[in-house]
């Protein structure tokens, strides 16, 4: 009996571990690459996370939400500057990730917005982030926080990823 209950526990653990993967036919369909957040000014209530979302499957997917314990709520937003006016909009119905394609979340475009930051994001720290996809399910990533350095339209920032972000921005399936 003792042996049996132990087996059940082992089996349950195995099932729990295996079940998210069972929705994937051949490994993860979505890869979240080089996620990063920028350090936030003191007192700031909002922050933004950028990344590249690569869809390796032949079916379109959709980023429908996100969560993290560093902020009260997270939304997917798009920032645009039109005729000198900054506009920011919640992406209605989630962000479409085309089949066999990728979408870059970056300054001046899409980002995961952190609203109600519990404390400022400091360079060198990391934050946990769970992204919710319509088909691929939940994907958790560890997001490094980078200094508020000159973005230069993303040029300097992407160099920084190549140097530092790759190893820290590792991905794991939940």
């Amino acid at each position, binding site marked *: 009996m003792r042996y049996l209950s132990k087996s059940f526990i082992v089996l349950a653990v195995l099932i729990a571990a295996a079940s998210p993967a069972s929705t994937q036919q051949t490994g993860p369909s979505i890869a979240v690459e080089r996620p990063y957040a*920028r350090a*936030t*000014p*003191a*007192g*700031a*209530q*909002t*922050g*933004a996370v950028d990344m590249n979302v690569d869809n390796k499957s032949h079916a379109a997917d959709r980023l429908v939400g996100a969560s993290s314990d560093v902020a009260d*709520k997270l*939304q997917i*937003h798009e*920032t645009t*500057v039109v005729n*000198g*006016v*900054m*506009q*920011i*909009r*919640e992406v209605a119905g989630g962000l479409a990730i085309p089949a066999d394609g990728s979408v870059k979340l970056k*300054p*001046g475009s899409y*980002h995961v*917005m*952190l*609203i109600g930051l519990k404390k400022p994001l400091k360079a060198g720290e990391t934050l946990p982030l769970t992204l919710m996809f319509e088909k691929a399910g939940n994907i958790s990533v560890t997001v490094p926080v980078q200094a*508020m*350095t*000159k*973005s*230069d*339209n993303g040029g300097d920032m992407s160099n920084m990823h190549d140097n530092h972000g790759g190893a820290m921005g590792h991905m794991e399936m939940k």
Partner: protein
Amino acid sequence: MPARHVVLMTMAGVCGFAVAAVAIFAGISRVEQNRGAPATQIGGPFTLIDDAGVPVTEAALAGKPSAIYFGYTYCPEICPTTLLDLSRWIAKLGPDADKLNYVFVSIDPERDTPQLMHTYLSSFDKHIRGFTGTPEQVATIAKEYRVYYKKIPTQDGSYVMDHSSIIYLMAANRKFVSTIAYQENDAAALAKLRNLLGTTTPSS
């Protein structure tokens, strides 16, 4: 009058009209480059509260040219980027930096209290002052500077702000000089700020 002369005169008339039209159009284009209004109509008197909680008017900027940016602290990307750019340019101005005023004016006065503005600005160059006020006071200065801003509700009952994302450069005599666009390159922005230094003495 021979028919030939009439034709020539008509042609001359058409050409003249075309030249006049081009001249008028060029004139309009020049005005439009100044954001659709004569330069003198940008800016004006205001009453706001600075980030120390002290009431301020346009007199707080007297004697120096000013770089004025309108934004809000809940802004996740554009405003911190602009304030960071401005901080870098201020640093590059060196000792000349003290010859200008730098102001971050909130267009979200409901959330941007003087205290929050003060805390927020502690992350940027210390020259930058924060101004906020009542919604009416902010509406007044925004109108004077032709700043567009609009509250956009979000599904969760909160809101984000659309707003003009340019830095206004004003001479010491409060006349509009030029603007710095969002993410304008360092060389161009610094040239404009140094040019602004040269306007320290009211010239008109």
